[in-house]
């Protein structure tokens, strides 16, 4: 019986497995192999195995800066998403059902529109001749336009807009699992509203905040479209520099090495984060 069930497990997961191996694992392995190839500006890629690309990335401060900037942007985005998304979900959870559906639609609506379109929208708003600058200059508040395009700040702003729905969904799911009577129970035991929020609501929402952070951080760290449009060549992040290595410099092994390093560092952050969460909340939220 158990052997049969085992067999069925495999049979049922076969389609997913095939999809997974062909479209995810295969390109990944090819990228990995590519990153170990040797590249020469005049001879192109040859078949010899070398660690030159990794040495180049790890030995150049330029790349450290790009990695540093990427993670700083991802971290800032995550923090802002928590600050905006967590309270939003808290209020969402307390709304009347009808009104809540409308609000959910408004919050999730942006997900229906392509990231590129939304980011171009931000470019219109943030540009030197953009909505904000024109408005402020017309009012006479500022003389020269404030530089917002091609800055890390602009990228963070647009990324927050893209990522907040994920945070709201994650936190809201956690809040929904919570029994509303627990707040009443705490109140009957003498807790003030602030104490109820701090000791009862927040701890129960924490797993949602943490998993939401994980999603937002990894998506932001590997985001391409938003930094490409709002950062251009001037504010490079890891994803855009990978693109440049592949499409402009044509140094594919170097691009592959950067991509692999980005992936590895994101995985390391995720695993570490997960460990932390498990250690802290594993027992009560199994």
């Amino acid at each position, binding site marked *: 019986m158990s052997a049969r069930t085992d067999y069925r497990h495999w049979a049922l997961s076969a389609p997913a497995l095939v999809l997974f191996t062909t479209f995810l694992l295969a390109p990944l392995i090819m990228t990995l192999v590519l990153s170990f190839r040797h590249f020469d500006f005049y001879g192109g890629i040859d078949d010899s195995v070398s660690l030159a690309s990794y040495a180049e990335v790890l030995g150049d401060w330029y790349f450290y800066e790009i990695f540093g900037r990427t993670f700083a942007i991802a971290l800032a985005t995550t923090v802002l998403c928590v600050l905006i998304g967590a309270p939003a979900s808290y209020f969402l959870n307390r709304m009347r059902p009808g009104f809540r559906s409308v609000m959910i639609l408004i919050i999730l609506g942006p997900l229906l529109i392509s990231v590129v379109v939304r980011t171009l929208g931000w470019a219109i708003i943030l540009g030197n001749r953009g909505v904000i600058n024109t408005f402020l200059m017309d009012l006479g508040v500022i003389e020269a336009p404030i530089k917002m395009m091609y800055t890390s700040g602009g990228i963070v702003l647009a990324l927050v807009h893209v990522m907040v729905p994920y945070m709201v969904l994650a936190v809201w799911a956690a809040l929904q699992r919570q029994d509303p*009577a627990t707040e009443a129970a705490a109140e009957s*035991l003498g807790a003030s509203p602030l104490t109820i929020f701090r*000791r009862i609501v927040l701890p129960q929402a924490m797993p949602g905040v943490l998993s939401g952070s994980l999603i937002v951080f990894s998506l932001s760290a590997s985001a391409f479209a938003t930094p490409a449009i709002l950062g251009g060549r001037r504010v490079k992040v890891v994803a855009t520099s990978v693109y440049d290595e592949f499409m402009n410099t044509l140094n594919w092994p170097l691009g592959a090495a950067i991509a692999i390093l980005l992936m590895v560092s994101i995985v390391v952050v995720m695993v570490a984060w997960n460990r932390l969460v498990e250690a802290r909340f594993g027992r009560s939220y199994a």
Partner: protein
Amino acid sequence: MAFLELNALTKRFGPVTAVDRISFNVEQGSFVSLLGPSGCGKTTTLQMIAGFENVTSGKITLNGRDLAGVPARHRGLGIVFQSYALFMHMTTAENVSFGLEMRGVPGAERKIRVARALDLVHLSHLSDRYPRTMSGGQRQRVALARALVIEPELLLLDEPLSNLDAKLREEMQLELRRIQREAGVTTLMVTHDQAEALALSDRVVVLEKGQVQQEAAPFDVYETPHTAFVSSFIGKSNTLPATLVSGDASGSIVECAGVRLQAGATPLAAGPVQIAIRPERIEVVDDGAVLTGKVSERVFLGNQWLLTVATPVGNLLVLRRNAGRSEADIGDTVGLAFRRVDLRILASSEAAA
């Protein structure tokens, strides 16, 4: 002056009157049940006493103190919620300790009191476990300990046993009564389970449609229900429309579907009434039958047989102890008899007609 007094307590939700001028008292140290069918306003009443629901009109007095305007967290009541509402991110001990922390009880004393409360509900061995890893009965005890540890003036229980399976529920009924006695805490329990209310309470308050139907000791609500609703809601009862022909303190005569029957005493005047008799008070007899009828249904309940007998006055439920003999079968004609005092006369109400 009673310990807890509800005076013409009313709650309206827009056009809906959920609680309609409810008045009753709870004596100190007693166990009172608020019993009624679903939607009759039990939870709403409890929520008003707890302070989670505003009072439309009426008055709640606890130990001589008017509760109007006192916020829930200053009422100092112990509440066990229907869902238990345990803090899932805290261990058993932390859950129980929470109320004491809020009261600023120092750590050392807190430990002692938490240990004592857990001992009372027999959960000392699970003090470090999280609720998610405990059974329904255990969680229920944690909720009880959490409510009792603050030594509340009044313990409110909202259907505390409804989430448990039948067997565990019976066990917990006995436990609940023991714990309440040992803690000596005045308790008001809400339930729709009449057996639970009868088994646990010193007094039962029967509610229907937001109104008090009867308030009495369990034996009295069962034996002398005031209304047809109480009679049919508490235990099983055969209720039939009839006409009171004559009556005095010694007994009365009623006519039901053209059959004259001797019934118990009644203060009511001649006219249309309801008559009610419990299935277990009807005997199957060979001689001296008051009514005869044909058995139309027979259900075996283990310790009892439940017969439906078609008689001239209508279908009557008859409950027979299973004495190990075979029982009258479907289609058999049987004679029925009962003591006249067991045939009770209730005021006729349009609702029950």
